[in-house]
């Protein structure tokens, strides 16, 4: 906006200058937006609007589907379970990622490149493949159970699938890079001298962490958490393959749409998910602006 302002003022002063306005990078850049914009409108915005509209269609008054969602205990339970799972996955991912990101943020040279590769390669591997890999590991006669039986740790194979445990393990694995990368980004921006300063000023390692490092890494924590939480809310493949009786909301949507052919219900569920996601994101934006006083902490240092 601020870039365009002087240009507009120039137009008012001399109309001829406006007619022969030379090519500027800004104008060229705006043109570049056109193809993806058309693509998104045709294949994303219009279908999405259609979904939202469909949710109000069907028999009865327009809000019938929403009434069903929030009154039927079965759909409410699915929603609750979805939120619980997303929260569990987010928390576990954070706990696992924080130390990893800390170590990698301090790494240099080959160690840094190696660790980044180890984080990114799974990230580029298909979710379907990784989910099937977890099935191989976690199933009744899978690698994990066989191993624990051989070592005599357990007498009977543990039930790790179709009960949420396996699904959550696989989801945590798939979500790790989404947490590590924002954390890493923030942690690499934390000036090491701040910790040294805290040390000289009398803070032992625990207090250095609690009063300096942790607060400064919070932008990364919240960015990673919101990313993982939102992604987990709408997670489909892993819950569908590993979930069992208890389903996540995305699986429920698929059931409604392709098995029960209840398109209005599927649309209403999808809309609820969309609205919750948008609300969470807005909340996150607000919180960040409040915390940083309009700036992120990284900018200050």
């Amino acid at each position, binding site marked *: 906006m601020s870039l365009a302002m002087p240009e507009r003022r120039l137009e008012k002063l001399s109309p001829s200058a406006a007619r022969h306005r030379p090519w500027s990078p800004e104008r060229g850049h705006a043109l570049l937006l056109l193809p993806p914009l058309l693509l998104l409108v045709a294949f994303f915005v219009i279908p999405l609007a259609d979904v939202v509209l469909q949710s109000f269609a069907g028999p009865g008054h327009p809000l019938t589907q929403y009434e069903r969602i929030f009154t039927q205990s079965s759909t409410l339970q699915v929603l609750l379970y979805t939120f619980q799972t997303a929260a569990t996955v987010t928390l576990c991912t954070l706990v696992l990622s924080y130390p990893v990101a800390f170590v990698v943020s301090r790494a240099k040279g080959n160690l840094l490149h190696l660790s980044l590769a180890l984080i990114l390669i799974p990230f580029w591997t298909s979710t379907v493949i990784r989910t099937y890999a977890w099935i191989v590991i976690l199933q009744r006669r899978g690698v994990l159970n066989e191993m624990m039986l051989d070592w005599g740790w357990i007498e009977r194979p543990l039930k790790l699938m179709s009960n949420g445990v396996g699904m959550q393990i696989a989801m945590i694995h798939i979500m790790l890079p989404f947490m590590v990368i924002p954390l890493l980004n923030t942690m690499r921006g934390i000036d090491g001298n701040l910790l040294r*300063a805290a*040390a*000289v*000023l009398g803070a*032992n390692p625990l207090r250095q962490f609690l009063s300096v490092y942790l607060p400064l890494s919070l932008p990364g924590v919240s960015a990673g958490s919101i990313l993982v939480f939102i992604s987990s809310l709408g997670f489909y493949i892993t819950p569908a393959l590993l979930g069992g009786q208890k389903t996540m909301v995305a699986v429920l949507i698929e059931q409604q749409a392709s098995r029960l052919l209840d398109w209005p219900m599927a649309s209403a569920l999808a809309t609820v998910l969309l609205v919750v996601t948008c609300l969470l994101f807005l909340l996150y934006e607000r919180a960040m602006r409040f915390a940083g006083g309009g700036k992120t902490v990284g900018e200050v*240092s």
Partner: protein
Amino acid sequence: MNVHADLTPDHKVIAEKRGALVEFGGVTKSYGPVTALRPTSLRIEAGEFFAIIGPSGSGKSTLLGITAGFIVPSAGMIRIDGADIVAVPPYSRNFGMVFQNYALFPHMTVAENIGFPLRMRGVAKTEKAERVARALAMVRLEGLGDRRPSELSGGQQQRVALARAAVYDPLLLLMDEPLGALDKNLREEMQEEIKKFQKALGVTVIYVTHDQQEAAAMADRLAIMRNGRLEQIGSPRQLYERPQNIFVAGFLGEASILPVSKATPLAGGFAVAELAGGGSVEAVASTGVGEALCIRPECIVVGPEAEHTDNVFAAQVEEAVYANGSVRYRLRLDGSGHVVNARFSTRPDLVLMQPGQRTKVGWARRDGLLIEGRPET
């Protein structure tokens, strides 16, 4: 030695209040085959303002890091008022430190930053507020306690860092290029302020910088470091007027350094030195018989008056540069072809010499110094 005994000022500053006596004994640091700090022994008096200067990679930051406790020395000991602190972690050493980029905590207000060391020491809330207010007043930042560091100017941030490092009355204040990020005028202002601050607190200061002028203006004594070694320690004046080798001579201010092929001692601490390429001069044999002759530019006399000095040469002006009331001549000596630099103040009626002009150059024998090190030719 007797020649410059009269120059030695009494550098022992007696501690007014609570400075610490700092002793380094054979402190060494090596990283694998790389030696960052050769065995270094040094005594810094209580309440002394001690500056360490040297080019980057000279080991000055290593020495400071070891003192602060960030770097564990490979060998040696550091004694504070007699007690060895090598095994003490940085958070228990009770030193103050000011970093080059200030290292203020961006997520805390100015008051919280200054109060941080007090919080870590479990000082009660009311006393903490009182001491923070006093520290803010001391650095003339009253009323800015609620600001974030990012809302302050560079000079103000610097003062916050100073207040934070001193609010808990440390015995020793370490400063790592604290003025490096400020512009020239502000830097000079802050030099005076830090000096006043140190006087008021009576604290011992170890001040690391690469700016020799800054160090000379502030310090009671300086140490010059190179390649992980202390080259020379002394008062700013001692180091400038009596450098021991060509590195020190060249690092502090300007100097003309001429190669000497042979030197014969005379009585009274003087020597006759034969310059490589011809000509001989009488000079002070300060560090025995050195391989180089060092003359400071303000000691060199140019023009007819040069005839009355001890070492007279005919020379040609190669370059004349005027700057703010002083003029600097680059002169090539006849015969040997060596170059000397002279500098003196001008007055409005003084006619400057032009390049190419012929003149006489000379200096008193007490102003020439035979020092160690072979000058590049």
